[in-house]
């Protein structure tokens, strides 16, 4: 009876030990796999960074037929004489229909056209 118990315990111990060893090998293999994946991630990161690099962008732009533009240019215009001393004229007529003004008053919105708003400010 006692011998049987010892044998069972021994077998149990051996099974556990074998399982532990197997698990350690599995872990080792997974660590190796992890290293490879990290290496692949590094490679992809470098590819990504390189794709955003100014040299790559310029090369791609050139291949697509894009060109640098002159950042500033003068707009052609005709000179307009403005008399700053002349009196300010009448504000533009509000053409908003009367019924719409009434509705606006009811719903408490600002009445009048944008021109009127601009003219009435300040």
């Amino acid at each position: 009876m006692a011998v049987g118990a010892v044998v069972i315990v021994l077998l149990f111990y051996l099974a556990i030990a074998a399982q532990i060893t197997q698990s350690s090998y599995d872990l080792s293999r997974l660590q190796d796999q992890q290293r490879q994946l990290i290496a692949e991630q590094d490679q992809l990161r470098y590819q990504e960074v390189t794709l955003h690099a100014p040299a790559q962008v310029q090369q791609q732009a050139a291949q697509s037929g894009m060109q640098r533009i002159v950042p500033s240019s003068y707009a052609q215009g005709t000179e307009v004489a403005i008399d700053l001393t002349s009196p300010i004229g009448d504000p533009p007529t509000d053409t908003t229909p009367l019924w719409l003004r009434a509705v606006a008053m009811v719903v408490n919105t600002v009445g009048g056209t944008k021109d009127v708003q601009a003219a009435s400010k300040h």
Partner: protein
Amino acid sequence: MSTRALSARRPGTVDRVGSARLRVVSMLVIAVVLAGMVWSRLAYWQVAEHGRLTMQAQEQYREYVELPALRGAIFDRNLTQLVVNTTVYSAFVSPDQIAAADRDRVATGLSTVLGVDKTKLMGVLESSAKFAYVQHRFPKAQADQLRALKLPGVGLEEETQRAYLPGFTAGTTLAANLLGFVDWNRDGKYGLEQQYQKALAGTAGYISSYRDLSDREIVLGSHTHQDPVNGSDLVLSIDANVQYAAEEALAEGVKRDKAESGSVLIMDPSTGGIVAWADYPSYSANNFTQTDPALFKDNVLSYLYEPGSVMKVVTLSGAINAGAITPSTVINDPGYVKVGGYNIYDWDYRNKGNIDYTYVLEHSLNVGAMKAMLAEGHDAYYKNLQAFGLTQPSGVDVAGESYVPLPSASQMQDSQYATTSFGQGIDVNMVQMLSAVNVVANGGKYAPPHLVERIGNQVNPLLLQPQRQVVSPATAAKMTTMMEQVVQNGSGWTSRIRGFELDQAGKTGTSQIPVNGKYTQSVWASFVGFLPAQHPKFTMIVVIRKPNYPGSEHDWTMNDGYLTAEPIWRQIALAMVSDWRITPDR
């Protein structure tokens, strides 16, 4: 028994007893000696050699694996990554573990994937060597191909390698001279990689564990584990796009002018942060083992030059600040002035008559600079040079700064004061010179030049320090106006940018290169300026070394900064106006 009889037997008895004792004692001595020898030998192995034997035993059944720390990345101001850590592989063979029948297959596989010479490889495999490298540092794709072949006696070693972004010129990497590189011992060499080695490298960890007879790690066995502390990331003030534009304009300009070399440095006026740092010629930090070491040198920081007329900005600013002159002070300029027994001339040797200091700067007249220095006085002028940071290293956080200390104020000759006032007889590096001129752009304050804005999560403490007031804001404003006039009416005209004609400040500098104590016709040509003048977004200096502008073989003044350095400055400034969306203030 008679007494005689007893006494007659005694001698014989004494002999027997003495002999037995002697034997016992001898045996004891021998036993003690032998035991002592054994004990001493035991003590020797157990005590004296305990440490060594324990270590030998540990080496046999324990495995110590270093866990290298991940080196910190380097980012630009927009968090564009400038350096990436990649994994590369080295292949090795163990010829004594490869059966004769497998040699051809192994050699074929290795030569196909790695491109190595098969005949040489067969020679290695047939040798009695236990270990030999086949090829160093190849990318993962090739390593994967090798793994798939499952060649006996072939192993792969992993290593981390820094990978840098491509630069403008083929075979270069972006900002190579600024960043430096990391060698195979993981030590940063040159530039920021060297300067910030400690912060970037971190601290390696380790795993100490048991291994089995097949040399495989028993992960769940007793082991000690120390995690590595990864290196800190650096965030720079560099703008990768501006850096690229600078490298492009510089490379084209140096080639166009057939110059020996050139450099560009751009600074954020208000912080002193360096926006671009370009050298031409440059190199590929990804391929540093195949590079001429002369190219590793960074000319921005380690090349000393005489700044020439750019120095007049410093001289006149100091004189204005001291109240010795104003932009409208009128002087007489006969084209030369006699100092210390020497006649020192304007660049054109011409008599200008009565002119004011705005005209002096516009037309870069040496006589005017010397008179301003004399009006200010030697001592005040010397203090002025100190205040502008020209008598000490700039302290910028990049490895390898060169500088030449000026003699003390009392040791300087009159003629040296005179020539220094217009930028000859004084050696500076580009960082010192740009930082000095930037005082004007920054409202009279000295902004300490720097590259690193953040180390990990820590802000560079330099940025939190108050800036030193060198000249008053009023002086800086006056000098800005004078430098605007240089662009509008003087030698800065080739740098003009459309739309900014009234809001651009600059100054040219051209100085002859001394060789064996005599000035030659080779020059350093430079241009420094900031834009927009009233609210500067950047300050930039371009230095071209030994240009050969068309026609300069007949007239060396054709190599002047306005023909060589200014067009490069303009090209880069145009790119920045576009990229940074800069608009003029007036």
